């Protein structure tokens, strides 16, 4: 007890020292004034004292859980056991679908708009999940594909008056093509080199869009993009929001179906094999180039498609929407939710997008909390909210036969 107290005191003193110049002194070199905020020192001391207690408690609990896992104890949480129950799964899916369908009827346009952006991130997360979660190719510039989709709709709509429904697949295909083109130079790269090059692609996209004014209209962006048409009818703002919401629901369901099928397909298993061990995977006769490129292309496809929808929802896009922060958020959705797990990614997107939305009252602190949450999550639950379970196969016919023999 005394030991603990002493330790927390030291931590508290350390943080007081650490935050002293930034929290206590505020200097304005423009107006030549210095403000000393001594009260902040007290708050820092108190907060770090309490937090250090909490931190140590959590760490010891974590250690204990690890010890249990090593002894072969039950490591799956109750939630996971529940999810493995198929009949519960179907019931839950039905309830969720129903809730999703009546959502815009119950809540107002504002809520639907927020929900649309959360759903956009669900699709983005599922797309990135293909390259990061399944194929193990870390992509820090995923937002570029999203931007490519958004810009292709904006430009096609601006110059050629193409409608939403025609451009939706076109956007996906253009995103796909970009995935292949950008995938080529990085076929030989691994791990962190891959991360920095993809980050570079993201930055290049933004810089080019900002400066190539004759194509992209520069930083001022493109305005007055058409909303999706509903059999040629003009919809009011509220109606068109609801309409986009339903399109988005359909797109999410489509994405879930396709990615789920992909995950268990031949190519999906090739991705997982590649993630686990590249050399063994090649030795088994899997074409490395094709597998990698297909992971990029199929991941980028969703980003391109949902980019089209994003442009039609906001009716205005500019390069500022496609920064590295977006890529980081999408990546955190995948990692926080649980890499490779579709349900996890969906949950992750809702938590990461909706929480900050509803915490607008604390809007100043939400990015601070966001960063801290990422760190805490990684330390105390690195496998994500819902960890991915390996597909296992059981031969059901076997049991009866062995009994006879």
């Amino acid at each position: 007890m005394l030991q603990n107290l002493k330790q927390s005191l030291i931590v508290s003193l350390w943080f007081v020292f650490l935050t002293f110049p930034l929290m206590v002194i505020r200097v304005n070199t423009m107006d030549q004034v210095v403000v000393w905020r001594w009260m902040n020192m007290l708050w820092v001391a108190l907060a770090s004292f309490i937090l250090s207690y909490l931190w140590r408690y959590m760490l010891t609990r974590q250690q204990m859980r690890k010890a249990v896992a090593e002894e072969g104890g039950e490591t799956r949480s109750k939630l996971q056991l529940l999810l493995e129950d198929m009949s519960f799964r179907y019931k839950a899916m039905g309830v969720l679908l129903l809730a999703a369908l009546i959502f815009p009827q119950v809540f107002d346009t504002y809520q639907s708009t927020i929900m649309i952006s959360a759903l956009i991130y669900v699709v983005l997360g599922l797309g990135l999940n293909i390259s990061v979660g399944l194929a193990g190719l870390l992509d820090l510039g995923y937002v570029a594909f999203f931007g490519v989709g958004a810009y292709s709709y904006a430009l096609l709509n601006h110059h050629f008056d193409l409608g939403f429904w025609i451009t939706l697949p076109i956007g996906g295909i253009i995103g796909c093509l970009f995935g292949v083109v950008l995938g080529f130079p990085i076929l030989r790269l691994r791990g962190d080199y891959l991360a920095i090059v993809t980050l570079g692609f993201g930055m290049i996209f933004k810089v080019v869009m900002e400066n190539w004014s004759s194509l992209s209209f520069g930083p001022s962006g493109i305005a007055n993009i058409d909303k999706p048409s509903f059999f040629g009818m003009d919809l009011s703002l509220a109606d068109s929001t609801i309409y986009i919401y339903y399109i988005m629901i359909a797109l999410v369901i489509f994405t879930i179906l396709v990615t789920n099928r992909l995950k268990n397909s031949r190519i999906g298993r090739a991705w997982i094999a590649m993630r686990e061990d590249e050399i063994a995977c090649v030795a088994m006769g899997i074409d490395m180039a094709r597998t990698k490129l297909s992971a990029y292309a199929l991941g980028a496809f969703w980003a391109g498609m949902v980019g089209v929808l994003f442009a039609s929802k906001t009716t205005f896009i500019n390069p500022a929407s496609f920064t590295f922060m977006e890529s980081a958020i999408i990546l955190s959705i995948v990692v926080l939710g649980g890499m490779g797990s579709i349900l996890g990614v969906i949950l992750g997107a809702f938590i990461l997008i909706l929480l900050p939305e509803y915490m607008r009252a604390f809007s100043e602190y939400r990015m601070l909390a966001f960063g801290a949450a990422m760190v805490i999550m990684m330390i105390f639950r690195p496998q994500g909210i819902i960890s991915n379970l390996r597909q296992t196969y059981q031969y059901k016919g076997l049991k009866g036969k062995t009994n006879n023999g």
Partner: protein
Amino acid sequence: MEYFLELFFGGLTRGSIYALIALGYTMVYGIIQLINFAHGEIYMIGAFVALIVAGVCTIYGLSGISILILAAIIAVIYASAYGYTLEKVAYRPLRGAPRLSPLISAIGMSIFLQNYVLLAQTPDFLPFPRLIPDFAFMEPVAHIIGSPELVILVTTMVTMILLTLLIKKTKVGKAMRATQQDMDMARLVGVNVDRIISLTFIIGSALAAIGGVLVASYIGQVNFYIGFLAGVKAFTAAVLGGIGSIPGAVLGGLVLGWAESFAAGYISSDYEDVFTFGLLVLILTLRPAGILGKARKQKV
């Protein structure tokens, strides 16, 4: 020719700053194979602390290059403290976790530190007091290389020589090299690996803070967001030179600095960042382990 020389020295100045920050990335990566995404934020905190010290001093009527040195020393102390704490809080509990976990933790820390400075201080750009005087002996060449550039070049060169001596000649340096080569083996022969890792973070952060102070006093303004781009570019420099290799980081920084300077001077300054990353992609496709990096043969 004069224009060429101006760009040459501009690129050299810029590149030596990149190299200084890149060293922190490369040292950390060499030991624990982690992209320390929050390294750019340490650089920013270094610059901010220096701004606060220098600002308080100038407001109370002190000025001159000695204030800059004082500010730099305090900035280095604080940045090292932040680097040390960062490793203890965000990375140490994750040792042995899958590769992506510490990376995400690092991105989270970077966002956290940016917003911490934003909330504790200000979102605006703050002017950094001008503390480097114009040296009289620099008068004849002032149109090619100014006094601030000279200060930057001399400081970075001295810092790098000291770092090389530390790593090559001292016992601690030997322990660092041993840890980099094989962590388990180093532990077996009695190296306190945890302490070496902490020390690496402290040294890397100190270098970043020196870079931060130099850039802040050279460009003349600071805000909470300067760390991001500087961090990304310095990391690019580290990868370019071959991550994990200390001469590689210096070389990568200089190559990047020159490439940017010449591309901006002769082609177009709008697309500066495109050249940076274009160069990166080009070099990595030709040499996937960077200029000086050793391609590791994987054994199965």
